[in-house]
């Protein structure tokens, strides 16, 4: 994120949107009719005008945004952190308290959007003023900053001291109340922009975006491409919103029982009860799958294929139908598409020999046009050369074999036998927490043969959950 600032080349960068929003709200808060009621606040022996309590702020936010106390306090806290509101009693503590502690609005002069980044010169003057006013009033970290600045901008130090003295003289001529207010405002500004070590730096924003060194060239070519893209987009076929949006309602409804966060999961959510039964029961190699899992295969062909167990079941079915080569072909094409570039020619060759060549052992039935195009492409094999053929076989399975599989005895049988786990409740007694078992790392698959002797499974009782 970048904030409103003039960079080296004088180019105005983008205003940070959150600052604009905060300022808008701050202005609302100060509205004479709808804003917070300000009153005078006594600070020791002086009266500070236009102050409010922390509770005022929180209550105003609750009403304005229709939020809870907790959220209102949180939002109010951000205004204090970013220096739009500052505390009067404990100025060093940039915290919002929802009680009768006093706060004031920072003057726009010191807003983050008008005065950022804080200049070194200004900081030096500020510290110099503090130093002059009362010798040794500078806190440790301020002393360090002061000395560092003195070294760094030594050439302008006379100017710094001169400015400091001038500002101190001017402030002496003000009324005590005004003077204190101005000092508070200035102090608040520096607490935000030069936070003491150990406190959170609100203005820390991460690495610079839109840096000048490698900017995208917004040249004629760029715009020509954009124009072309927009022209094509204009001619695009669109679907009515009512149809599209209805599909989300259906999708959410269909998947809700499968969404552990929405509806829980049986036997229990491992993260909540520390019981990993749910993962064990849904693993790839489990003997009997759960009912929900088998049901999910009927939602779409992709769901069936994405589940290794579903894929295996489907393959078994296809074998009975003597069309297993379709799924094998599809898998082989996936391997080409997502595999190592260097291995593509040899993989494509394998696929040709096994599935496409006349008289191949597992010949797949593709329409002649696609076959012709594919065979032509094989002369110069590349990653996507089998795409058309793969798509053809995919849709063949999807439209034909898949629906029949769902109606088959194989599927219905499995669905009938599938498990509905019993719910295990979280232990009533908090100290009877289940032991959290480790599981073998998937990285173990990379262990070489030499390592076999040393291969260990770290305290793995991953097959069972123990009860205390």
């Amino acid at each position, binding site marked *: 994120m970048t904030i409103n600032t003039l960079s080296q080349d004088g180019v105005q960068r983008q205003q940070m949107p*959150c600052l604009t929003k905060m300022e808008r709200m701050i202005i609302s808060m100060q509205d004479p009719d709808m804003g917070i009621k300000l009153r005078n606040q006594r600070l020791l022996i002086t009266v500070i005008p236009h102050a409010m309590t922390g509770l005022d702020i929180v209550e105003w936010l609750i009403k304005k945004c229709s939020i809870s106390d907790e959220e209102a306090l949180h939002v109010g806290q951000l205004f204090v952190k970013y220096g739009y509101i500052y505390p009067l009693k404990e100025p060093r503590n940039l915290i919002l308290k929802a009680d009768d502690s006093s706060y004031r609005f920072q003057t726009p002069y010191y807003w983050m959007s008008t005065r950022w980044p804080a200049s070194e010169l200004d900081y030096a003057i500020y510290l110099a003023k503090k130093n002059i006013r009362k010798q040794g009033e500078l806190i440790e970290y301020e002393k360090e900053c002061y000395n560092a600045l003195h070294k760094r901008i030594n050439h302008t130090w006379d100017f710094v001291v001169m400015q400091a003295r001038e500002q101190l003289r001017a402030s002496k001529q003000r009324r005590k109340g005004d003077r204190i207010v101005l000092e508070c405002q200035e102090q608040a500004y520096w607490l935000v922009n030069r936070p003491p070590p150990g406190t959170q730096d609100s203005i820390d924003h991460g690495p610079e975006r839109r840096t000048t060194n490698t900017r995208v060239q917004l040249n004629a070519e760029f715009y020509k491409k954009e124009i072309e893209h927009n022209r094509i987009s204009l001619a695009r076929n669109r679907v009515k919103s009512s149809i599209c949006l209805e599909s989300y309602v259906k999708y959410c*409804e269909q998947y809700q029982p499968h969404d552990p966060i929405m509806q829980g999961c049986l036997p229990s959510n491992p993260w909540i009860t520390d019981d990993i039964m749910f993962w064990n029961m849904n693993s790839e190699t489990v003997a009997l799958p759960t009912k929900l899992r088998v049901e999910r295969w009927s939602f779409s062909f992709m769901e069936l294929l994405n589940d290794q167990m579903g894929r295996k079941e489907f393959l078994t079915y296809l074998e009975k139908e003597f069309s297993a080569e379709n799924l094998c072909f599809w898998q082989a094409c996936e391997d080409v598409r*997502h595999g190592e570039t*260097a291995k593509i020619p040899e993989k494509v060759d394998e696929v040709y020999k096994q599935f496409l060549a006349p008289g191949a052992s597992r010949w797949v039935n593709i329409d002649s046009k696609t076959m012709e195009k594919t065979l032509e492409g094989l002369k110069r094999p590349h990653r996507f050369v089998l795409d058309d053929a793969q798509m053809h076989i995919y849709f063949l399975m999807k439209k034909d074999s898949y629906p029949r599989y769902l109606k088959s005895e194989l599927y219905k049988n499995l669905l009938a036998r599938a498990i509905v786990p019993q719910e295990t409740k979280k232990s009533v007694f908090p100290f009877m927490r289940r032991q959290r078992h480790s599981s073998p*790392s998937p990285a173990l698959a990379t262990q070489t043969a030499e390592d076999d002797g040393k291969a260990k499974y770290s305290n793995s009782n991953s097959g069972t959950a123990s009860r205390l």
Partner: protein
Amino acid sequence: MAAQPSDTLATLKTESETLKTKLEEERAKLHDVELHQVAEKTEALGQFVMKTRRTLKGHGNKVLCLDWCKDKRRIVSSSQDGKVIVWDAFTTNKEHAVTMPCTWVMACAYAPSGCAVACGGLDNKCSVYPLSLDKNENLAAKKKSVAMHTNYLSACCFTNSDMQILTSSGDGTCALWDVESGQMLQSFHGHAADVLCLDLAPSETGNTFVSGGCDKKSCVWDMRTGQCVQSFETHESDINSVRYYPSGDAFASGSDDATCRLYDLRADREVAIYSKESIIFGASSVDFSLSGRLLFGGYNDYTINVWDVLKGTRVSILFGHENRVSTLRVSPDGTAFCSGSWDHTLRIWA
């Protein structure tokens, strides 16, 4: 008379803007109903209780990115000080740690096999580290440099296998790389500024991905041809995060303009905005629950907001992190989600 180069550029820019306006008008024509209207008949969600179930402590600095392993319990996370850690989030044990030679490791990803992780950041590269279980092995020694950009790496993601990686960068481009050879297979140009995020489509044909950037644009790309297939420009600020709706027919984006938005790919338009007056700071990271009913957003004001995707309302606000939430991902089986923050911790919520 020779045409002034500056005139031509200005003319082109105007032409492009005019077309964009026309495009938005066309898109509006088929918009006959709002999502929340269609969702009126859907049951409202009840009280939502999600708590922190695990806190992963170990990073000495801001956590910037995280990714789940397909085993549903392991996580890789990266931080500002260059550390990349692999955790078994269930036991909270750290299993691997790598120190990158650069700071601000903004991108990390777990390989589908679970045997490697990819990461990168201010080094402008994406490197792949195979995960070894030998405690004495120096993971950094086996590191493979895969991607090279001319500016910071903002996001990376393996495609359906360990062999290909998709990257996005501050140099305004995305690219697809072959891991073994480090060769660039395809590059994607079209963003006018830094690309900050990307997500792979869960579609049947598995050929597209979406990216979002500092130009306030989100683009859908064809991985085969490198062409931008669709683009949307309704956000008012940088897009920090994009995530596909589980069906692949839509995607959500989170932006510095403090809103999350839903874009439908068939209707070819924005169909929902998730915003609230009290949410002032940008959304850094978004993800859907398994059914797509809930959208989780991690924000720069340290909170996580939970949105009802269909009704457009905010269901819950989660407090706990003590600094910006920078990354958020739902686990592969939807049992929990993990949030990473500038407060140096990761939290598992369920």
